[in-house]
């Protein structure tokens, strides 16, 4: 059941992304999520950006729910249910590359610190449309950082996938951890498969229950809320819908582009 948590502070990361800090302790693994509830409006899943006594979620304004969230002030309360799902698995990883694209950066934000604490070597690649949309660049202290922007306004001009390709050529890691738009993740997966490098990808689907019972967030036979949201290469190889299809609120299967067009509303 949801617990109403007080917002302790709000940081405007980019023109469209805010990080909400909560007076609620969340413990878990990077990649896990919570369901955020705005009473009488809706409840939606969000990746946890930071764990600990004061936990945080980074939210991109893109629909009715997030517009309402952007109206919230410090001191306001919001329902939090979770953490849920499976996060990134670090066993046997000694050398990693972390890739975050767009608002997907939120899901991998706490990963560099966890890796550092465990003595895992990390290279970080962050990507955004432009300089203004880039956030959490302060991760530099936690690993070798490469920044990419689509328009070249900061760092490399181009996609994170190009930067990943170059990093893989320099030195192959044990695992690539990534979160971002599914088109980007599909490309990350393709590159990793070609280079024979394991990866773990944090996926997204429209979610209802968040606890593995309603089936809304299925990809093939996997539940994003319970089996994921992080899936490893072995599982992703078996997902025929990955990078291609997702389900609408009715449960109807739709092409990814139609799904994203609907999610923007």
């Amino acid at each position, binding site marked *: *059941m*949801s*617990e*109403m948590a007080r917002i302790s502070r709000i940081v405007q990361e980019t023109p469209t992304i805010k990080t909400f800090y909560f007076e609620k302790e969340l413990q878990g693994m990077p990649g896990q999520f919570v*369901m955020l*509830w705005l*009473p*009488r*409006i*809706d*409840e*939606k899943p969000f990746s946890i950006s930071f764990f600990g006594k004061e936990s945080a979620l980074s939210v991109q304004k893109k629909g009715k729910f997030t517009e309402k969230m952007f109206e919230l002030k410090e001191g306001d*309360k919001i*329902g939090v*249910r979770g953490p849920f799902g499976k996060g990134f698995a670090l066993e046997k990883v000694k050398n990693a590359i972390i890739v975050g694209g767009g608002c997907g950066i939120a899901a991998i934000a706490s990963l560099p610190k966890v890796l550092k604490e465990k003595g895992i070597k990390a290279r970080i690649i962050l990507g955004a449309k432009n300089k203004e949309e880039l956030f959490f660049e302060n991760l530099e202290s936690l690993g070798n950082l490469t920044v990419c922007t689509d328009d070249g306004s900061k760092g490399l001009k181009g996609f994170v996938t190009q930067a990943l390709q170059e990093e893989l050529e320099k030195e192959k890691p044990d695992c690539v951890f990534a979160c971002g738009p599914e088109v980007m993740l599909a490309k990350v997966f393709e590159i990793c498969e070609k280079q024979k490098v394991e990866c773990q990808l944090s996926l997204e689907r429209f979610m*209802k*229950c968040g*606890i*593995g*019972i*309603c*089936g*809304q967030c*299925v990809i*093939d*036979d*996997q*539940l994003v809320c*319970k089996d994921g949201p992080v899936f490893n290469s072995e599982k992703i190889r078996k997902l025929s819908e990955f990078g291609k299809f997702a*389900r*609408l*609120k*009715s*449960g*109807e*299967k739709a092409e990814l582009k139609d799904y994203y067009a609907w999610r923007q509303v």
Partner: protein
Amino acid sequence: MGSIIKAKLASVELENPTVLASGFLGVNAGILKRVAESGAGAVTTKSIGPEKRDGHNNPIVCELEHGLINAVGLPTPGFKNMEEEWQELKDCKVPVIASIFGASVQEFVQVAEFVAQKKPAMIELNISCPNTQQHGVIFGTSKEASFEVTRAVKNVCGKIPVMAKLTPQALNIAEIGKACEEAGADALCAINTLGPGMVIDIEARKPVLHYKTGGLSGPAIKPIAVRCVYQLYEAVKIPILGLGGITNGRDAVEMIQAGASAVGIGTAIYYNGFEAFKIVNSELKEWMQANGFSKIEQLRGIAHE
């Protein structure tokens, strides 16, 4: 020979008596097949309706101490938009029950006629969902409406057996069950969620479920489910799929003793994930062996003797 927990629901043979309850997981063929692989004796699709329908906004579910309360609101792509799922379900290793709903007898018939052509093992009539105004309980609380829907659907389903899913909200569930039997139902399913109930978050000062009210499921409602199945068993001759709070083998034994031929599994998935079916089956088998039962039929309804 074979397993001592083989079961039969009307003409449908089951390797074991556990059946995935409608509303849980059954969005696509992939997940239904995974439930089948996980040990279910049969699986039920999410209720299929006449038109595309989104269901309610979130929250659609709330976790309680002894179960769940939900108001998902019957989301469905609509019966015409599921061709791929039917194709993929053809090689499902256990019987597939297609659950259907409608807002009128005509809509039920329209969906049933189409779905019957897909040759599911059975068609379940959802005349018991408490979470919309125009579907479900509005039929299942009336003897006449239950009779009418069941008879009309039977007329268009050919040899496919039809099972009516009943609501504990009915004033006299035995009468409703009898009406469905008289209308030609091949089996009954009892019970759908109990309610409607409401949970208010006192900090938010608002109902938690977006639909405000919802149906209760899980261990908290088991005594009511057992009572309903017990009363139905005395009133009808057709087999009963008993469900409501079945989480372990002893729950299944109790439901079968009340008169169930098979048992539905729903909220137990919240507690035990996909293992829920194996847990019930292995504990049921153990109990039967320890108590000298070699067939489900020997156990069925013995609480009435």
